[in-house]
């Protein structure tokens, strides 16, 4: 069982790394004030320059990068056998998922535009949550 569950934290740490890269990219974009390449149907600039794109001048992506780094660290520690870190990871991804839901709501109903890099981050967060839920369900079945 331990080996089986440890694979999930390991997978979560890799997914968190993907989220970290995405968040770092958006943070750099913010400080360089350079437009990001945006796919058809998206309007990245409208989202990334909106009133919700930063908190006190600090881009939301920077907070995201910090969150992904913490998630990565917790997942990796769990993958190496520290079960308490996996519980902390669970608490964190639930909070991240809640924030992500709010950000998706803002894009869909307030800003009226989507940013593909923000959606990638959302997918990453939900994937982290899914991995955590799977670990819990698996445990319940055992």
């Amino acid at each position, binding site marked *: *069982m*331990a080996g089986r*569950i*440890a694979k999930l*934290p390991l997978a979560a740490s890799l997914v968190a*790394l993907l989220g*970290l890269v995405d968040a*770092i*990219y958006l*943070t*750099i974009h913010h*400080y*360089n*004030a*350079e*437009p990001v390449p*945006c796919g058809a149907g998206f*309007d*990245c*600039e*409208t989202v990334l*320059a*909106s*009133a919700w794109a930063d908190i006190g001048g600090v881009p939301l992506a920077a907070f995201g*990068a910090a969150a992904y*780094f913490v998630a*990565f*660290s917790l997942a*990796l*520690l*769990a*993958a*190496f*056998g*520290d*079960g*308490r870190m*996996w519980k902390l990871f669970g608490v964190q991804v639930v909070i991240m998922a809640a924030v992500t839901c709010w950000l998706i709501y803002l894009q869909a109903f*307030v*800003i*009226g535009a989507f940013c593909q890099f923000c959606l990638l981050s959302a997918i990453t967060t939900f994937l982290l949550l899914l991995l955590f839920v799977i*670990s*819990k369900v698996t*445990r319940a079945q055992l």
Partner: protein
Amino acid sequence: MANTPEKPKSNAPLLIIGAVLIVALVGGWYWFSTTKPTPPSANSTPKPGSTQAKPTGIPSSAPAGATPPNYYGSPTAAVTLEEFADFQCPQCAATNPVMSEIKAAYGSRIRFIFRNYPLDMHDKSYDAAVAAEAAGMQGKFWDMQNLLFTNQKTWASDPNYKQAWKDYAAKIGLNVDKWETDMAGLPAKQRVNDDKARAKAAGINSTPTLFVNNVEVPFAQINLNGLKTIIDAELAKAAQGQQPAPAANTANANK
């Protein structure tokens, strides 16, 4: 693992976490450094007041843009502030109050030129620019410009946005029928196209982009204090008898 929590048996995870942190910080900084706008080169010729600005300007070979341009202030002012903006760009809307304060603070001591640069990524910005130009044909460019920016969040997400613009046109006292006719006509569109051609020739790829006496204002200085610092430096140099940089055509401007 979940039933019997254990602590890591080695330092491996901590080493990996530390390595990732270092790679993220160093890599992020390198990424930032290599993608940020080109810094001034050592052998470039600085323009007045360019100590904190990139020495990039609009090349003299660039198209003049809409002629006459939409400008505010004095056509003979020693300092020209030229803004390229997109009506659907949130940062441009956020900058609009700053520009209003600049106009109020400096009046005829500067010339503020507004250029349309509707970005292709925005579905309504080209039409918005045409709407403002059509209002300009009745001498109400700035009123419409201000309303479009002030209410950007409202109309940008409104499927019936043209009705909202029509309401703005009525609100500022336009002959709405003429305004609609002008919106459909070529002259207003041509003015937008001319401004856009100037922006493209200047290599502008984001909005808002500002130039003070043809020196690009760094994005971080597009705020009231940053702009005042640059403008004051230019005014001081002009007062000392230095020649300001050449700027755009302003004959018969819509002010």
